[in-house]
């Protein structure tokens, strides 16, 4: 799971402390499991170690919960790279795709470009799955590949609908 990158995304609009990061996450993904405080702090500590975030304020009363974190340039670059890259469409990887789409919208990255790249990545994977079959293939392997291809097809419909909604919104704003 890409919690680290999401935390970078949540810091994109400006420095925040752990509690704000958690609240921001739960606001971005109101229908997902809330982010645990423990996870927020361990993630921030790891990001700080990797120089992707830095402490910008310790607060007057001290204590970890008052520590304010901000993105470093390295962190911004890491986030931009993550948001530009489509996910590899495999079983169970789709959650990350949804997270990326939400994060591109929230951070003002080019969502339509991401959606187009993800669409291409999904289509390529479907072709791989459907042309991989040998004549002697076991039924069970084919069933697994069918399962993945049909789920990718459902993802593609979601990607199309996202693309349409975002384009419509852009047109309305114009």
């Amino acid at each position: 799971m890409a919690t680290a990158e999401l935390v970078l995304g949540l810091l994109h609009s400006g420095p925040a402390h752990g509690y704000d990061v958690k609240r921001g996450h739960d606001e971005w993904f109101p229908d997902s499991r809330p982010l645990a405080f423990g996870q927020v702090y361990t993630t921030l500590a790891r990001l700080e170690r990797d120089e992707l975030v830095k402490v910008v304020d310790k607060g007057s009363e001290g204590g970890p919960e008052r520590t304010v974190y901000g993105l470093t340039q390295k962190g911004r670059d890491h986030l931009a790279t993550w948001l530009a890259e489509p996910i590899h469409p495999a079983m169970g990887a789709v959650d990350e795709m949804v997270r990326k789409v939400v994060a591109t919208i929230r951070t003002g990255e080019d969502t339509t470009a991401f959606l187009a790249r993800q669409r291409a990545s999904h289509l390529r994977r479907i072709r791989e799955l459907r042309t991989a079959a040998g004549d002697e293939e076991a039924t069970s392997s084919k069933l697994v590949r069918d399962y993945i291809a049909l789920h990718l097809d459902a993802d593609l419909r979601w990607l199309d609908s996202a693309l349409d909604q975002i384009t419509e919104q852009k047109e309305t704003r114009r």
Partner: protein
Amino acid sequence: MTDLALEVLRVEYAYRRDVALRGVSLQVNPGEVVAVTGPSGCGKSTLLHCAAGILRPQGGTVHLAGQDLAELPEAARTRLRRTKLGVVMQFGQLVPDLTLVDNVALPLLLEGHDRAESRRSALSWLERVGAAADAYGVPAELSGGQNQRAAVARALVTGPAIVFADEPTGSLDSQAGEQVLDLLLNSARHGGAALVIVTHDNLVAAYADREVRMRDGVIQHEVALS
């Protein structure tokens, strides 16, 4: 002109007041497979009809196998369409009173080819697409899948530079659809023809070299898939 199988430049088309194409450009290389996708009413079928010379665009140009469609007299345009272009529709394109072999031979006969030779070519194409056993049946007696196989054979019998397929598997169940698609791709490759498939089915679009996605009469994005 160029070596492109198809070059559509800034084509515009409107049905009365409904604008279907707003300056669409599309280039297709020889042998390339292009999927044109998009929601209903996005203009993808209109684009295909303009490219095929079925509709006359109100703006822009269409070059098919290097020839400007608008500059050709009607007879020459019809001939170009018959020899350089194959078309596969969703259904209903075969002549109902003719057997499959006569349907497939028809484009050759219209070109003035010898009858026996035309039938031989038609039969060999029907064999290639797996419909030889039904060569002497008429469309109404046969399944949708067999009719589509014959339609693929008819589209390719003249050795066209490009084949246009509009939802070619849209009326078939998934297994027959997969077989017809496979056949269409292999036959186009075998004959060296470019293939433009209009489809709303992602499982069909996945087989293209390139996806061109349309929305509201314009191209929304193009992505390479191979």
